[in-house]
């Protein structure tokens, strides 16, 4: 039995999908409800149906709501341990490839992209790397492409950066203009910004490293499965997949295609096809 609210949420998501082609139908239901409740209150709507009415008749509202439905929280070098591990992976493993493709899936406003670009530059692989930064939110993509952040965020960025075994001064990557830090545009020279949806779109290229952080937590199981399937298909054998601190492949049906490379940082390595998982009994035979 679905409650009236559930039906309303269903209809709302269906409407948004059919009219604006944003498919949130398989996002985590509790997350969607929490967000919609917030939006409902903000727009002073009495019900999701009213919200639906407003949204279907006001395209500008959709853009706004999209910012609520896709969470754009990003710090540069967020969870420094993750980036420290990536630095190691980049310098030791990825450096053996003649060209390196990196996909930042759900790049939001670009903090993660610039963090990675900085790592690649510091490890001397900037010219070999090709970044793909994708998100479903056009506005976020634009901001990612701009690479401009408020000055008051720099402190936190730099704090994180300091824990990633830095090779340069963080301030060398940006210039300050009118209280905004403008990041070196050369960092995004090898980056392609694209609107790509993990819900509906498919793999577009072979990847060496995929970083998809704090995106899966907003998906329901079927969608998570799809997304991880995409990553699994896109990665080369022995390619790396990085997830957010609260995410893991633990329960995924694709978990068998990956080995845990760095458990605490949620970094996985895709296995070669021939290395199908074979449980091993460790033990001495006793009679």
């Amino acid at each position, binding site marked *: 039995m679905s409650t009236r609210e559930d039906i309303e949420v269903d209809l709302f998501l269906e409407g948004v999908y059919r009219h604006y082609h944003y498919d949130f139908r398989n996002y985590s239901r509790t997350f969607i409800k929490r967000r919609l409740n917030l939006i409902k209150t903000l727009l002073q709507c009495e019900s999701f149906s009213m919200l639906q009415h407003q949204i279907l008749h006001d395209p500008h509202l959709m853009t706004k709501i999209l910012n609520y439905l896709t969470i754009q929280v990003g710090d540069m070098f967020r969870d420094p341990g993750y980036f420290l591990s990536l630095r190691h992976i980049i310098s*030791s493993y990825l*450096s053996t490839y003649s060209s390196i493709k990196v996909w930042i899936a759900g790049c939001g406003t670009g903090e993660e992209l610039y963090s990675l670009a900085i790592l690649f530059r510091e490890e001397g692989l900037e010219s070999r790397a090709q970044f793909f930064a994708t998100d479903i939110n056009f506005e976020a993509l634009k901001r990612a492409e701009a690479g401009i952040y408020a000055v008051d965020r720099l402190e936190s960025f730099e704090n994180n950066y300091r824990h990633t075994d830095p090779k340069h001064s963080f301030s060398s990557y940006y210039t300050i203009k009118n209280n905004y830090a403008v990041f070196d545009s050369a960092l995004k020279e090898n980056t392609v910004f694209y609107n790509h949806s993990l819900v509906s779109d498919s793999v577009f290229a072979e990847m060496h490293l995929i970083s998809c952080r704090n995106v899966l937590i907003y998906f329901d199981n079927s969608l998570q499965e799809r997304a991880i399937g995409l990553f699994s298909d896109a990665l080369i054998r*022995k390619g790396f997949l990085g997830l957010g601190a609260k995410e893991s492949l633990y329960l995924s049906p694709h978990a068998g295609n990956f080995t845990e490379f760095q458990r605490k940082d949620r970094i996985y390595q895709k296995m070669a096809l021939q290395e199908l998982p074979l449980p091993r*009994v*460790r*033990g001495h035979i006793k009679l």
Partner: protein
Amino acid sequence: MYRFQHEISRPLNSSIFIILGFLFILDLYAPLGISVWIFYFIPIVISFFSLQPNLPFLVTFLISIFLFLGFKLSPLGIEESVAIINRSLALISFLGIAIVGNIFIRNQLQSKKHNWLITGQNKLNSQMAGDLVLTELSNKILRFLVDYLEAKIGIIYINDREIFRHMSTYGVSVNAVLLDTIHAEDGLIGQASKDNRPIFLSEIPNDYLKIGSSLGKSSPRHLVIYPFVLNNKTNCIVELGFFNFHAQSTTDLLDFVSRSIASAVQAAQTHLQVHELLIETQRQSEELHSYSEELDKQSETLKLSNAQLEQHQKTVETANRQLKEQSRILISQNESLINANLALELQKQKLTQISRYKSEFLANMSHELRTPLNSSIILAHLLAENREENLTDLQLKYAQTIENSSNELLALINDILDLSKIEAGHMTVLPQNVNILEFVDSMEAVFQPMCAQKGLHFRKEIADGLPQNFITDPIRLGQIIKNLLSNAIKFTETGEVALSVTTAPDVHIAFIVSDTGIGISVEQQSLIFEPFIQVDGALNRKNGGTGLGLSICIELIRLLKGKINLQSRLEQGSIFTVLLPEVLDMPQLQPDLELTPAISSRTGNSGLLPAAAEISFDRAVLNISEFPEHPQLPQNEPIILIVEDNPGFARSTLELANSFGFRGIIAATSEEAVNHLHPHTPSLIIMNGKFKDDVKDSLFAADDLEIPLQLLTANDYSSNDLSDDTREYFLKPFIHQKLMADFHRLQMKTREKLAHVLIIEDDPIERTMMSVLLNSKKIETIEVGSVPECLEQLAKGTFDCMILDLGLPTTSGFSLLETLSMEDRYSFPPVIIYTGLGLTADQELFLNKFSQSIIIKGTKSPERLLDEIMLFLESTGSFVADRNTTGQVNDLAVDVSLEGRHLLIVEDDIRNIFALTSILEPRGATIQVARNGMDGLEALQTSLDGGEQSIDLVLMDIMMPKMDGLTAIRKIRQQSAFKDIPIIALTAKARQIDHDETLAAGANDYISKPLDTNKFIPLLAKWLK
């Protein structure tokens, strides 16, 4: 009429008339022909300066009268007709001037009126300037209107949500009753607002609003109610009362300023609303702030409770740990119990074994013992015969004693050996038809005389209803009964010994041997059946015998599947009852029913194995290596242990293992599986999942040994639909592959030197390092340092793989690859590029064409090199196919020839390029690749300039660096030369809106990734027509 029209300038008018009169008099006195009248134009012109448009006409009219009178009354001068003509002409001219004057005055009036309105507007605007509060604004508006329109009384109403509220008044008597609010449809005000039209009233009732002053009150004579409208909405109404009313100017002015007043009111209202909203926002902001505080607090609380939770969790974890510890102890106790049990079992087995060894030893001793004994008996007998009669009596007695003693010894030995034989399982049983009557008679024949000798009575008794015959082993039966009877006689001094036969329940026959002898005490009854125990040593010494008789009896009865009972009382006698089955079955093996078909199908035997008795020990365990298919497998080959109780499943798995040349052992239970873990540890265990827990828990304890384990379930098999007897089982494809992979890996592991790899590297240190690295994995290497050496090697033989450094002396790796790809003289093994050089995109593309993998030297490159080689060798070349699987080349269903077609692929991803190439090239197309939109444009341009082959079709990826596909398509379409070239977009996007965008950019069609050949080829064909 405007009020300034009434301000007639009297001096002007009088001067006009004075001049007119003066001229008329002059004209009267002047004779005809002297044209004094010409000056009549002066008054007309003067009248221009009045503000009365009709004045020139009036003057002209007077002039015409004066002209006529002047003509009639003036003295004669010239001819009269000429004078008439002159004066008529003059009159016409004057009329013309008058018309001009009229127009002039009108214009003058018009501009004056306009000025007045503009002035009013300006005044009003200056009044309304600035951010005014609504009441202030309405005050100023009213004051202005009253002043400017010379009204005597005024009220202003402002629309506040469809209710008109009076905001300010002018000249209204203090004690006048005024409605604070007027509804939108109430009275004249309401009417005016509803119609958006002003209302004018002239006949004002006496009790209407009074204009008040200190001197008295008076009602206005004229009333105007004027609504100010903005966007069809009345937002303000003014009511004005006049004594003197200039309708036109009032309405004009009101109309003129209505918009600005309405706007000003609206602005003031909005201003007010904004202000209100601002306050609201501030309030909300405060609220938000408090909310945020609240949240902070909550978060604090959460942190606290989180800490508590953590604490709790820690407690739980501790408890858990304790539990685990306990459970671990339990498990270990359990384990030690099991171990102890096992040890006991082992001990028991060992004991049984020892006992059996002992029995066997004794049984084997029979010959060794009896041979010397027999000879001593015979010799003693010969001596006792004393044929040569040379022995003394005493000597004779000695000889007899030796013979007797030896005989006794022999009997004793026989008994012992019999028992041992039985215990060692050497005693065979041969069931035969036994006639009961005959059997009893034969017994009587033997024992009747013995009884008679001892003075005892022998009685035989055969009950009614007994079958004539029954099936058992007569020799063993005889032994049993003889033994019992001889015992009975032995222990009976007086009375009788009887043998009776009756039927017993469960189709058994009872042989009862009874006596009236000494009997056996209850305590001793349980002992007498034990071997080597005599109830009473002394008695035995007297009666002789070994005490083994009963033990032998019991073993024999067991062989015959019978039972023995004893009833006895001391001094009264004993009754032994032997129950034997009427029909003694052949002691048969009962092999595992389930496994039998599997065995039979492999061996072609009829189901019974020759060593039946042994099978009963090792029932369901089959060592397949003994089957004829693989008799010559060497001992050190790996063993596959298959733990599976379904013979069909087991067999299909085994066949797979055999096809890889592995020996397999099938165990149907976990215990058997355990038995087969020693002494040769299997290299791989393939096990039905249901045994997992048993095996894991009880057999594998933590240590350093690793056996790969593959678990299967019944679901992993499929079968053909035959009857149960002939049904065959197959592993499902996925599992099949999985197992193949396992076997393959095992095969690789067990092979001595598994591969030959050619290393081409000019640095000797590097070369040695690589060969050491590979040799450590049992890979045989040949190292060369230059291209000619390499070619020499490749001309001589084949390799599984070659590792190529690009930076070689004289000839580069690139040209080597080119040479190899073109010349058949050399073998061309798969290539792994191992280089310290950075590569350009073009170089990379080139290398990707010929090599399996490119590795740039770095800290982890040896690891990756080894990894790639191992992977490559393990997959035995399937890696090459791997790249092509995306685009199934051999898809005949969509076999369209693309012969002679030249296609441009604009795509960044190497995997995709290979997929496309592998689809297109086999169909005859030639391919040109551009790595991004920019390069794509360039390639098209070059083809146009005639340098290259012209391009028939463009395959355009969308997501590319430098210039994306959509931009590239747009740019292509901008050039007239490429207006019609077919472009197919390759897109990862699935939404219709994205596809529409692609088409809108100018693509002819699109196809989604990953490519489906079945759709892709027809699509190509369509656009290449």
